[in-house]
């Protein structure tokens, strides 16, 4: 157990973070190069003001027509994204591990709050899954990879919750949890999860083109 734990909580953590950062950087640069090659006007039209205006609308709950059309979906989407960013960064157990390895620590949420957010996150994943299966217009656009991504994202929450509550098999779950977290990080650059990095640019560009060129709103 010591060897497995030390491996997944040592070299594998390094590997996943390096893959995450290097991968994201690579995707950003290759996208930037591609954009210059295919459409020089992307850079011409990019406008800080119009880009930011659009981004701010889209990250505000109910700030766009699409968000207002689908209130329930909007609420779930926003809470889910808050959970997935908040929990890994501000969970006390994670911070304790940062402190052990690097001597740094920061503000954290209570374990009770973490439990509630985790349940919300898992429930959101179930909602996304059911939506994909039930709604014909969504099902039509769904491929296997969408289910895989959903599983990759849900796994750290389920295994982490399991370990924390020390349900049977919690030692193995703890190891699986760490691997699941690392898998998610490493998968970000190479799957649709890259929208986390691309969002400011894609949205910023849409906003710029709609704002500066078409003099229209894109929200």
């Amino acid at each position, binding site marked *: 157990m010591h060897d497995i734990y030390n491996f997944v909580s040592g070299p594998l953590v390094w590997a996943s973070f390096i893959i995450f950062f290097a991968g994201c950087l690579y995707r950003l640069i290759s996208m930037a190069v591609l954009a210059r090659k295919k459409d020089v006007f992307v850079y011409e039209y990019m406008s800080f003001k119009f880009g930011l205006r659009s981004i701010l609308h889209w990250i505000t709950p109910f700030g766009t027509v699409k968000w207002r059309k689908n209130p329930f979906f909007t609420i779930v989407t926003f809470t889910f994204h808050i959970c997935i960013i908040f929990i890994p960064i501000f969970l006390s157990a994670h911070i304790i591990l940062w*402190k052990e390895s690097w001597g740094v620590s920061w503000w954290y949420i209570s374990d009770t709050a973490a439990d509630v957010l985790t349940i919300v996150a898992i429930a959101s994943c179930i909602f996304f899954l059911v939506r994909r299966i039930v709604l014909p217009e969504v099902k039509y656009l769904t491929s296997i990879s969408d289910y895989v991504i959903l599983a990759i994202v849900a796994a750290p929450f389920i295994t982490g919750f399991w370990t924390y509550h020390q349900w049977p098999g919690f030692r193995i779950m*703890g190891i699986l949890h760490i691997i699941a977290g690392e898998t998610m990080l490493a998968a970000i650059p190479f799957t649709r999860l890259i929208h986390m990095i691309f969002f400011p640019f894609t949205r910023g560009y849409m906003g710029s083109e709609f704002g500066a060129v078409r003099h229209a709103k894109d929200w």
Partner: protein
Amino acid sequence: MEKRTLIIYTLIILLGCIFAVMSGYSQEDVTTVEDSAFEKKMRPGVPFLHDQHNEQAELDECNTCHHVYEDGKLVEYDSSEGQECSECHTINKGDNPISLVNIYHLQCKGCHQEKKAGPIMCSECHPR
């Protein structure tokens, strides 16, 4: 009184005394680590059968854990047993307790990792 009865009585009383002393001892024995500096505890105290642990782990020197430092250097022949870790590794009331948590983890988990024996995962030291 017959000699045999006397011996038996004496033995019973003696055993009783030993038992009383022993149980008195084991009441004082450290069986959990529960530092008083943690105000709002996030987890239950950590089970730690002090003497049994140190025997099993073959820790003869008390100051392996109950250490004393002078000018930032470990003092070899001095020890600080009877003092809680938080008496030196202080945290202020209402402060973030992570620094105190950390010295426990560095010492306990650190040695377990070094020796590849003993618990290293949260759940192993912090049973619910």
